[in-house]
């Protein structure tokens, strides 16, 4: 297109040896920052189609993405931490399970590769788990609405799925109190849940935020906002580890990482602050919609409908991004208006 013909719009990538449209990199970073900061995940599933469309060399896409996600998650974690949304104790306990799980998952996929079954198995397992997660989210919401109408409300408000309550009753020592999340449970619960999500993440070749966030909410029992912040802390650490291993293989374009991080810095702040003005179920339902669209996109890709798949995923990202930006700005405007009214009343008094 003529408007993208100007040379200044293209930045040379020294490792890949190609020129890439840098505003598109900034936009991808920004969008992933917004969505990742809001949902508490890395967002690798969003970045790859975006990079593919702008002609970024695919050999470097995953490694570059993981490095950028590590940096972006650091920015979001700093912000969430100020809100009190990061349970560091829980994050550290889960980290061991996550790292071990990812290695086991990666070994499983290498075994499948050796027997020639990796492609379709991985994709269909991914679809099944995404379907399960989106079903869980919408079922949870429907049940919570029903309970709310019947007046069945706990200290956390009306809740749909409460599987974590049963799991909290498991009394295998050591029992640990997680102050930020506000519950006590056996340490084995977060370790085993993170091991399971780590195995799935390593098997599917993803960061795991997409799986870990609902696991934190439904199996471990974190309030949604704390699940978002704690998950970002995990993504940050596993992302840095992933960045190191991909950089060792020579699969990271650091210039692209820095450009995307610059966009992500702004996006992550918007996404994170937007959680302040959202109810937990608002975040969960939007997450469910994103997961559902991701699942449909993968199914389309499996049947070789590559363009519709890319259009669906990029369209979903754009709409969810706009929704989150709207939540943040309307919430911030309302807060500043309320603050001004309080100050005016104080002066009048």
């Amino acid at each position, binding site marked *: 297109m003529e408007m993208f013909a100007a040379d200044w719009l293209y930045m040379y990538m020294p490792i890949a040896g190609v020129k890439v449209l840098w505003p598109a990199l900034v936009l991808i970073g920004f969008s992933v920052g917004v969505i990742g900061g809001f949902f508490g995940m890395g967002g690798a599933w969003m970045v790859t189609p975006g990079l593919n469309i702008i002609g970024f060399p695919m050999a470097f896409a995953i490694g570059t993405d993981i490095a950028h996600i590590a940096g972006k998650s650091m*920015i979001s974690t700093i912000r969430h931490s100020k809100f009190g949304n990061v349970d560091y104790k829980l994050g550290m306990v889960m980290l061991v399970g996550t790292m071990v799980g990812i290695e086991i998952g990666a070994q499983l996929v290498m075994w499948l590769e050796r027997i020639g079954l990796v492609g379709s198995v991985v994709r269909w397992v991914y679809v099944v788990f995404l379907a399960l997660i989106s079903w869980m989210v919408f079922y949870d919401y429907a049940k919570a609405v029903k309970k709310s109408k019947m007046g069945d409300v706990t200290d956390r408000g009306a809740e749909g799925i409460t599987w974590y309550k049963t799991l909290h009753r498991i009394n295998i020592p050591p029992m640990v109190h997680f102050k930020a999340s506000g519950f006590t449970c056996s340490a084995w619960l977060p370790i085993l849940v993170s091991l399971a999500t780590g195995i799935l993440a390593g098997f599917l070749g993803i960061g795991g935020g997409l799986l870990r966030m609902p696991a934190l909410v439904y199996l471990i029992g974190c309030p949604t906002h704390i699940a978002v912040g704690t998950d970002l802390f995990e993504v940050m650490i596993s992302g840095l580890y992933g960045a190191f291993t991909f950089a060792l293989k*020579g699969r990271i374009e650091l210039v692209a990482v820095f450009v995307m991080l610059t966009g992500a810095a702004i996006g992550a702040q918007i996404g994170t602050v937007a959680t302040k003005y959202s109810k937990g179920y608002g975040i969960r339902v939007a997450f469910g919609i994103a997961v559902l669209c991701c699942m449909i996109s993968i199914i389309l890709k499996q049947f070789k409908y590559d363009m519709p798949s890319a259009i669906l995923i990029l369209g979903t990202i754009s709409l969810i991004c706009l929704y989150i930006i709207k939540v943040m700005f309307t919430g911030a405007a309302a807060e500043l208006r309320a603050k001004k009214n309080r100050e005016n009343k104080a002066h009048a008094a």
Partner: protein
Amino acid sequence: MRRNMKRIMALAVSMVAALPALAHAAAGKAADLVVVADTRVIDSGILRYFADLYNTNPTMNATWAVILTAVYGCFLGVLMDFLLSRTGLDLTSRKIVEH
């Protein structure tokens, strides 16, 4: 003596021949693509240094990649935190309302 030397040589050659096979069996997904950064077309001194490092020392390159990503992430986080604090919003507390 000569027979022993022949046996030792045969063992040594077979070990050298077996090494690639061992590495292949031990390795995970093989990285088939070998990329070499073309430093001839890079004008910037810093970019040329990192491109050279990429070609000659992958471990140091990986270490720098992680350190620089973490440092830049921290710097942007602190900077955006500072800029956002100037907006007048309360960025230290929130209410958890699930439903």
